[in-house]
């Protein structure tokens, strides 16, 4: 049961990354892809109506984490203190810049909020990338399951590590490039005209850059955690994740080259899902790895709630998830197709 909950919680986080990742990506490229005020409104209209729906998956993930893995929440959130607050501030800036930018139709005002938007999305992509790197590398957990981490210490990956070191910096860069590629693929699907053409070009370049970076990250991960691959090959979910990665890569490449935008975007989503799922399966059952002593690591079994709490959650969670799926279908149908500034902004953007 604990393993199932591990899958569910990871799934919610992965869905969040796939959904909000497109906004981070589109946001980072915003000023490059859209050059005139009208083009910028087009990008915003592609993100606008749905950003809070995407962001709420993070809230759903947080709530579920407290319910089923309260000790992990307690250790990790207190330990990642400063990094988490930076993420929260980034989310505040991102949401606000998206929301208030359109309220005044003025070049200075909109230009300012567009820049805040780009900056906050960069910050978020990098922080989430570094966070993923931290999950793989581990954190300085003591024997009581607590840690407290500085932003950086000596940039090495063992012992008293900081949030940033050579490995997590490279995962952060990788995440930023990959999410930008994901966002460009999304914009290709949702826009028309010059924004569409530029997005398509960016998508190709960025996906081409993802390939060598991915290779580099894989080698680095092997150096940082040599124990992982040997452990992962016995986990069928890792192989399943890899299969998803391979199929979605093919889908993405064929979509990009055949200009089938929907196919490319589906591929791009599943590529993200596959990569994160493979990673999640590879580290299981350890949820927080200790860089000080492996025996301090926190496993899913050690941080889970009581059996009765997990059983209770198994009763209502599927209901909530089924409802969320219904909303998802409704939204996808209503917001299918290209955005049109006239129809989708009600004079807002």
């Amino acid at each position: 049961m604990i393993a199932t909950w591990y899958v569910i919680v990871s799934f919610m986080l992965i869905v969040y990354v796939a959904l909000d990742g497109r906004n981070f990506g589109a946001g980072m490229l915003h000023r490059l892809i859209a050059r005139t005020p009208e083009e910028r409104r087009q990008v915003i209209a592609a993100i606008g109506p749905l950003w809070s729906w995407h962001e709420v998956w993070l809230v759903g993930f947080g709530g579920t984490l407290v319910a089923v893995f309260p000790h992990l929440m307690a250790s990790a959130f207190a330990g990642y203190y400063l990094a988490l607050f930076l993420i929260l501030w980034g989310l505040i800036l991102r949401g606000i810049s998206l929301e208030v930018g359109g309220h005044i139709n003025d070049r200075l005002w909109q230009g300012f909020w567009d820049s805040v938007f780009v900056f906050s999305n960069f910050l978020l992509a990098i922080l989430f990338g570094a966070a993923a790197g931290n999950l793989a590398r581990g954190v300085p957990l003591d024997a009581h399951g607590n840690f407290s981490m500085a932003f950086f210490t000596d940039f090495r990956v063992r012992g008293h590590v900081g949030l940033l070191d050579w490995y997590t910096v490279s995962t952060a860069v990788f995440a930023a490039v990959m999410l930008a590629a994901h966002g460009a693929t999304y914009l290709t699907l949702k826009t028309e005209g010059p924004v569409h053409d530029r997005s398509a070009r960016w998508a190709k370049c960025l996906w081409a850059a993802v390939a060598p970076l991915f290779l580099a990250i894989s080698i680095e991960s092997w150096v940082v955690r040599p124990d992982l691959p040997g452990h992962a090959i016995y986990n069928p979910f890792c192989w399943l994740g890899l299969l998803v990665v391979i199929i979605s890569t093919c889908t993405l490449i064929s979509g990009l080259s055949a200009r089938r935008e929907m196919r490319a975007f589906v591929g791009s989503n599943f590529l993200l899902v596959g990569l994160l799922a493979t990673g999640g399966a590879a580290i299981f059952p350890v949820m927080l790895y200790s860089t000080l002593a492996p025996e301090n690591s926190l496993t899913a079994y050690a941080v889970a709630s009581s059996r009765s709490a997990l059983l209770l959650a198994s009763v209502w969670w599927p209901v909530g998830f089924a409802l969320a799926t219904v909303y998802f279908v409704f939204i996808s149908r209503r917001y299918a197709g290209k955005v049109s500034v006239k129809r989708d902004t009600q004079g807002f953007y």
Partner: protein
Amino acid sequence: MNSNLSDPAFWSRFQFGFTLTYHYLFPQLTMGLAWFLVYWKWRALRTGDEKYNQAVRFWTKIFGLNFAVGVVTGIPMEFQFGTNWADFSRYAGGVIGQTLAMEGMFAFFLESAFVGALIWGEKRLGPRYHFLAAVAVALGSWVSGYFILVTNAFMQHPVGYRIEADGLLGIASLRAYLLNPWAWVQFAHNQMAALVTGSFVVTAVGAFYTLRRLHSSQSQLYLRAGTLVALMASVLVAFPTGDQQAKMVGNHQPVTLAAMEGRFVGGPRAGVAVIGQPNIAARRLDNPIEVPGALSFLAYGTFQSYVNGLDEYPEDTWPDNIELLYYSFHLMITLGTIFVALMAYASFQNWRGRLKSSTWLLWVLMLAFPLPYIANTLGWMTAELGRQPWLIYGLFHTRDGYSKVVSNGDTIFTLMGFTGLYFVLGLLFLFLFGREIGHGPDEEGVVGRGDEGGVSSRREEQFV
């Protein structure tokens, strides 16, 4: 509150209190305004009268701005359970985690999936789906309020739990936990208070336009709906919900009731102090003016009833800031009384058709809109200061709940960050809120803004 400024519990409490108080300025308007949108959208569907759609279009802009600030300031709240209150999350996560997660799964998903459709989607969705989006958002916001109040009610009056083998809390009965009587009373009281905020804001905008002689058909709509809802909600917030809430406190947290009333010595025929300053060192209320017997009657039903005083409880179970608790409670009551009187008179004048010509009354209604925000905040301060020194009443002390690994330096750093960010956010919100009010509802076109000409070009002229 512990006044020792090097105490980490103080800084974690201060940060949580500050970010939560600030956050809650926005959801109270969301929850209040949502039903106005539903009502007007429904009237538009039924009557086909375009003025209702204009009202919805105007208020959704304000709603959207308010909602966005509510979302972004709300996310830090959930995360602070882990960052600053790790030991509390460890101890009670098995219980409170359930409702925090349910809030996300059942309420936030519903609310956020449809809020975009409500705000941007009138043309994409068509009238019927647009109405349903308004209903979904209103429902979602109230359901989310319920789940968070169940969580709070557990901290005020824990029920349905058991202590597991490892000494941590688990759920013994989900039913008892979700149907906590405290949660029902608090929910009713709190939601009525949110309606008071929403209706006061609608009324104030109506009063402003009437005074400016602008948008006359719209302002009539706002004044009529606003004053009526405000009267009903102001009455309901006091009776029966507020009354029940006070009785609940009297029954389950008698020491809190004594502190709220500044009652240092117990006895029968307890009075309610109208004015008076608690003097903790001397154990008395200075300069009291009391209504004799009123507290006995309100709390226990007869004027003779015995009401406990603080002297009957050990000092370490007293709420740790009695003065602030006392003032919060009394000011809230005073404001609540003013609301009923003001809105009763305004509704009466409106019924006689004299409201729109009564300049002084319109001025009062326009300037009154901050008061419900203050009253809501004071209500929450009463609830949360009154719960001290417990984090979960009778089970778990506040001083045991904060994250031991987080240094004061980190907490003060993030507190400063929030202060700065929220200050800018507040300025921005007020500026844009004022601008939308200044711009007013569009009455010229059926399709409204967003099409060629019309508003956008008019707006550009102001700036180019």
